[in-house]
């Protein structure tokens, strides 16, 4: 036992993960260049294109903000919100009301401070509105929650959006843009800035304990709770966060149209927002942003294709109505054929940009795709195997053999280290201790014991198990030294024997 422990100190940790493939410096430069090209292209296009197209780009950015807001509820929490036009609308009216009625803004004369405060109020009102819904969502979910959100949106439409002092009836509440951002182009850049902010927060959300907690709650509340996650708090937090984003989107939308009319916030638009998130790819930031931008720009893309434009005009429909129909069709196609949405179609590219090899299917992904995760890991371990441990993979009997005749250099090292030959039952562990082969040994032991398939008789299986247990024992002691304040291990040993 002491021999094993002493040996482990000099040995590297067991079963290290195989080193990940990383692109070369050249590869990184190339990837960075592509990214710069994409984002630079967008900025350059916005800076040079006609003002009315810049205005549409701004709308695309705002839709992306709203899409990311819905994505928190739909993609991360896993609940449907059909009342997002309620949050967005309330926020839009609040910010417009503030700048016009309280800050006294008129077109071309509105300070950046007033705009900022208006946006802040919009964000807060969106958060508060969503908090109410979040508290309801703690009690109900699924179909009934969808129904509640739907009614919530309608209620907002019929009550809050018809308060005369807030909305000025059908005429709408003006929301003049701040000084310096009155042109469509400048405002588009402002919207990009806020979109970048939302993307940053969303990125931090997913890459921190918050995102993991929310995703865990989505998959299994009992398991999440037993991991120590406050299920209630995180569900509420997710809804509030979604509301904050929606509020920001609403505020930006108000200054985009510069005149907030209650008719702009109806169920059809809420449905379109849900569709764009689904088509973009639930739970995927890049997909949602692209999907949202696509749906925001779709009516204008129709204009670019002359025959289509004429067909729409001839039918006497508005371009927005066409978007809904196309959106529904795309959503059906997504749900049936491409559940990952646009994000899944783009995933080879996004993975490549993140520094992986260009491949159609993700690395180390079990299940659906061919690369069976566990087999792959075992295979890699096998490839890095030491000659002496090659037998061990085949099962317990040969493991015994290996321990009886350890490779010469290893046994020499062991004797040199401790001055005593290895005990027979330590052999398996001892053989595995040396350098790179260690990982392989752990995998091998694991393979040998699963289902006991390798062992001819029960005795052989036990032998393997004992070797494995010894191995782990040593590692345990190295990593977790016994806590002196509690029961000393000596008592434990007697306890063991009693049992």
């Amino acid at each position: 036992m002491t021999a094993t422990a002493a040996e482990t100190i000099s040995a590297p940790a067991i079963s290290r993960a195989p080193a990940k493939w990383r692109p070369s410096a050249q590869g990184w430069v190339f990837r960075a260049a592509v990214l710069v090209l994409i984002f630079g292209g967008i900025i350059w296009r916005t800076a040079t294109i006609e003002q009315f197209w810049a205005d549409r780009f701004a709308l695309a950015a705002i839709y992306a903000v709203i899409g990311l807001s819905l994505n928190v509820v739909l993609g991360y929490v896993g609940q449907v919100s059909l009342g997002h036009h309620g949050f967005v609308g309330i926020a839009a009216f609040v910010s417009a009301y503030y700048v016009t009625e309280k800050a006294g803004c008129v077109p071309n004369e509105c300070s950046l401070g007033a705009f900022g405060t208006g946006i802040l109020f919009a964000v807060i009102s969106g958060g508060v509105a969503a908090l109410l819904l979040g508290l309801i969502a703690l009690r109900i979910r699924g179909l009934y929650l969808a129904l509640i959100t739907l009614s919530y949106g309608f209620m907002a439409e019929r009550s809050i959006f018809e308060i005369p002092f807030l909305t000025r009836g059908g005429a709408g509440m003006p929301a003049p843009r701040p000084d310096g951002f009155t042109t469509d182009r400048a405002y588009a850049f402002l919207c990009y800035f806020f979109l970048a902010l939302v993307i940053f927060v969303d990125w931090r959300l997913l890459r921190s304990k918050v995102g993991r907690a929310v995703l865990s709650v989505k998959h299994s509340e009992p398991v999440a709770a037993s991991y120590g996650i406050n299920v209630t708090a995180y569900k509420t937090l997710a809804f509030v966060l979604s509301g904050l984003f929606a509020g920001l989107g609403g505020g930006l939308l108000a200054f985009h149209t510069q005149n907030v009319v209650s008719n702009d916030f109806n169920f059809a638009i809420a449905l379109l927002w849900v569709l764009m998130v689904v088509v973009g790819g639930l739970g995927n930031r890049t997909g949602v942003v692209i999907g949202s931008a696509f749906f925001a720009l779709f009516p204008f893309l129709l204009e670019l294709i002359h025959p289509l434009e004429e067909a729409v005009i001839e039918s006497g429909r508005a371009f927005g109505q066409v978007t809904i129909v196309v959106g529904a069709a795309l959503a059906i196609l997504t749900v049936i054929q491409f559940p990952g949405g646009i994000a899944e179609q783009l995933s080879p590219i996004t993975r490549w940009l993140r520094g992986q090899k260009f491949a159609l299917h993700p690395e180390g992904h079990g299940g659906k795709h061919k690369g069976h995760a566990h087999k792959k890991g075992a295979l890699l371990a096998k490839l890095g195997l030491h000659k002496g441990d090659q037998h061990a993979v085949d099962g317990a009997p040969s493991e015994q053999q290996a321990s009886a005749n350890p490779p010469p250099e290893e046994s020499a090292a062991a004797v040199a280290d401790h001055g005593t030959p290895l005990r027979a039952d330590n052999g398996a562990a001892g053989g595995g201790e040396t350098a790179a082969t260690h990982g392989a040994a752990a995998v091998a032991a694991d393979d040998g014991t699963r289902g006991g398939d390798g062992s001819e008789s029960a005795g052989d299986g036990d032998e393997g198990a004992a070797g494995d247990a010894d191995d782990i024992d040593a590692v345990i002691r190295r990593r977790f030294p016994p806590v002196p304040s509690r029961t000393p291990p000596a008592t434990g040993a007697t306890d063991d024997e009693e049992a």
Partner: protein
Amino acid sequence: MSAVLEIQGTGIRFGGLVALDDVNVNVPEWEIVGLIGPNGAGKTTLFNCIMGAYTANTGKIIYRGRDISLLPTHRRTALGIGRTFQNIGLIRGLTVVENFMVAQHSRIGYGAWSALLGVPRSFAEERRLKANAMEVLDFIGMAHLADSQLEGLPYGTLKLIEVGTVLATDPDVLLLDEPSSGMGPDEAHEFGERLLKLRKTLNLTVLMIEHHVPLVVNVCDYVYVLNFGKILTEGKPQAVRNHPEVVAAYLGGEVTTDEEEQTPQISPEEETAGVTA
């Protein structure tokens, strides 16, 4: 030795069904206590009461002298009670290493809002979490699977990973719900060995629901038998095993056929080990 976990007179009813009735279980420090009983006896319900998934109608759950009956589940986890599930309790949408990171949730040194704003400390803390996760993964010999998705992994591996994630919550008391289900006899035996090692090195106290009789006899220091929501009997495993009432309630009736299948699994060696104890 003082009891780490005391269940005092716990009772719970669902409508007219009495699921648990005046159950008293004592889990002393550093012991492995078994909980056996036929299907529907209320074993998992008891676990749910201990973890706070259900609130018991009567009785108290005492953890290290403190009444935790009314605490929410996540607070109990933070206090040091870790629990595994009958059907593997892992988060399917996350990778293996992410599961280990999320399991450390109650020991994370940054707030939710500072995480969203990207405070530098949250980045450093994330690195620490990942390092811890890799350490535990290393410890159970699964580091090579760190970045794998859960789907597609073999059942036995998932079971081991689940125990690992519970260890990552840094528990004092481990509640294991049928840890050997889906394992062959050899694997179950090996699991028992591992559990004993774990207990020795991590100073764990264990309460374990288990159907695999040889494993219970080999590993447990004390056994409670639950039947129809009541404690039927309790005692040393060997004594309980031969208790006529237990044989009648647990091994008799329809379960007999199951038991017959299990009997050959008890290797002669294990039998003798049990007798000498």
